[in-house]
């Protein structure tokens, strides 16, 4: 079983996140950089599948040079190898470009499973796993809170608004796992040392057969026109009950579209 886990380096979940004034892209220097929390569930799931049978887990990430740290960090949970796609031309890439790059990097490598976290804590779009699945023409087995591989059949519980659907597909497939699917492990000392020596491929756009005209800010499929900090919260409304308190509250809830 060959598994690839796609991870993203993001600003620390608890840090204040900002956009850059010049080009409206994420200000990566404004906060500590960490492995996207939800991707840790994906790494854990991959390790469990491999440990229950046999196989190898590879970590794949697209991101600036610093993102190599996050690939190593993810490997130190117990994965075996890393692939880092880094190219100055990738700056400002949108989800369509990101999915294109990941799909190109994955093509031809013979992975049985490609696992993602269900969203990143910065962009929160939740679209890249579905896009990669569409680009590779592989079954989309996303929003899973249970993943089971039996022979060449994959079964997941896809979380929905009303509970879950049991969905089945053949392998290879693209999977995304939701938060709390499992309990991600802490890297052991042994694995941290092993991660330093784990094989890591650092690839440019040219290495994966793409040219700069299909990625990056200037070629994005959508653009940010402008952005602004949300104005400070105004003082809340205080309702004094003069016999009509309930009506006033109802009125307030209606104007705020709560009811």
């Amino acid at each position, binding site marked *: 079983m060959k598994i690839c886990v796609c991870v993203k380096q993001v600003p620390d979940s608890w840090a*204040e996140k900002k956009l850059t004034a010049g080009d409206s892209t994420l200000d990566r220097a404004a906060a500590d950089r960490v492995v996207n929390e939800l991707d840790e569930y994906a790494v854990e799931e991959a390790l469990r599948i491999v440990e229950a049978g046999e196989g190898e887990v590879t970590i794949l990430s697209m991101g600036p040079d610093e993102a190599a740290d996050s690939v190593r960090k993810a490997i130190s949970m117990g994965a075996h190898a890393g692939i880092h796609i880094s190219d100055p031309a990738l700056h400002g890439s949108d989800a369509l470009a990101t999915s294109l790059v990941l799909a190109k990097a994955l093509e*031809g490598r013979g992975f049985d499973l490609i696992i993602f976290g269900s969203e990143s804590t*910065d962009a929160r779009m939740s*679209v890249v796993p*579905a896009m990669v*699945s569409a680009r590779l023409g*592989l079954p989309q087995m996303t929003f899973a809170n249970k993943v089971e591989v039996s022979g060449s059949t994959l079964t997941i519980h896809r979380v929905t608004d009303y509970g879950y659907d049991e*969905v089945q597909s053949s392998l290879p497939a693209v999977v995304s796992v939701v938060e709390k699917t499992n309990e991600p492990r802490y890297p052991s000392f042994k694995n941290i040392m092993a991660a330093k020596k784990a094989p890591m491929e650092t690839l440019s756009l040219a290495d994966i057969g793409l040219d700069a005209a299909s990625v990056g800010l200037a070629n994005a*499929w*959508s653009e940010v026109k402008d952005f602004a900090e949300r104005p400070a919260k105004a003082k809340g409304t205080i309702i004094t009950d003069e016999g009509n308190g309930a009506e006033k509250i109802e009125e307030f809830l209606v104007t705020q579209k709560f009811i």
Partner: protein
Amino acid sequence: MAEVLVLIEHSEGSIKKVSLELLAMAAGIGEPSAVFVGPGADAALATLGDHGAKTVYVADGQAFLDHVVVPTVDVLAKLVAEKSPAAVLIPSSADGKEIAGRLAVAIDSGVITDAVAVSADVVATQNVFGGATIVHSKVSKGIPVITVRTNSIAPVQSGGSATRVDVVVEVSAPRVQPKW
């Protein structure tokens, strides 16, 4: 006026409120057309018309019950190719976002998620970073695919009625033998 496609989210024909909100939003951009996938369209037709849909495209069949996301994308991709709408609005649910993502790949168009408003010239407003930053963005390539959050706009009853148009698509099964 160009059509605006609105994907109707429903549970076996019972329409979710967000779908009616999206019809109201679509009316601010162009002529709202509902896209109803799966069983239950007959019962929904009057409500959709009453909330501003001029046309209801209906695609029903076993494929929509047996598979997640992909058949709906096939329906929307076909309609986009035929109608060249001004935009496609989709509820910002887990399914909705994935449908939007795959549709964007299929029709090679930009996608914006979690909009809370969309202007007449299809500029979307998003509250990002937990609401700390307000962003205005626009799709620059292809036909805008936008997912919209629940409770962004109030539904509007127009008292109109909608015409049902049936859509037949060949559902694209994922390749069993992939290219490696």
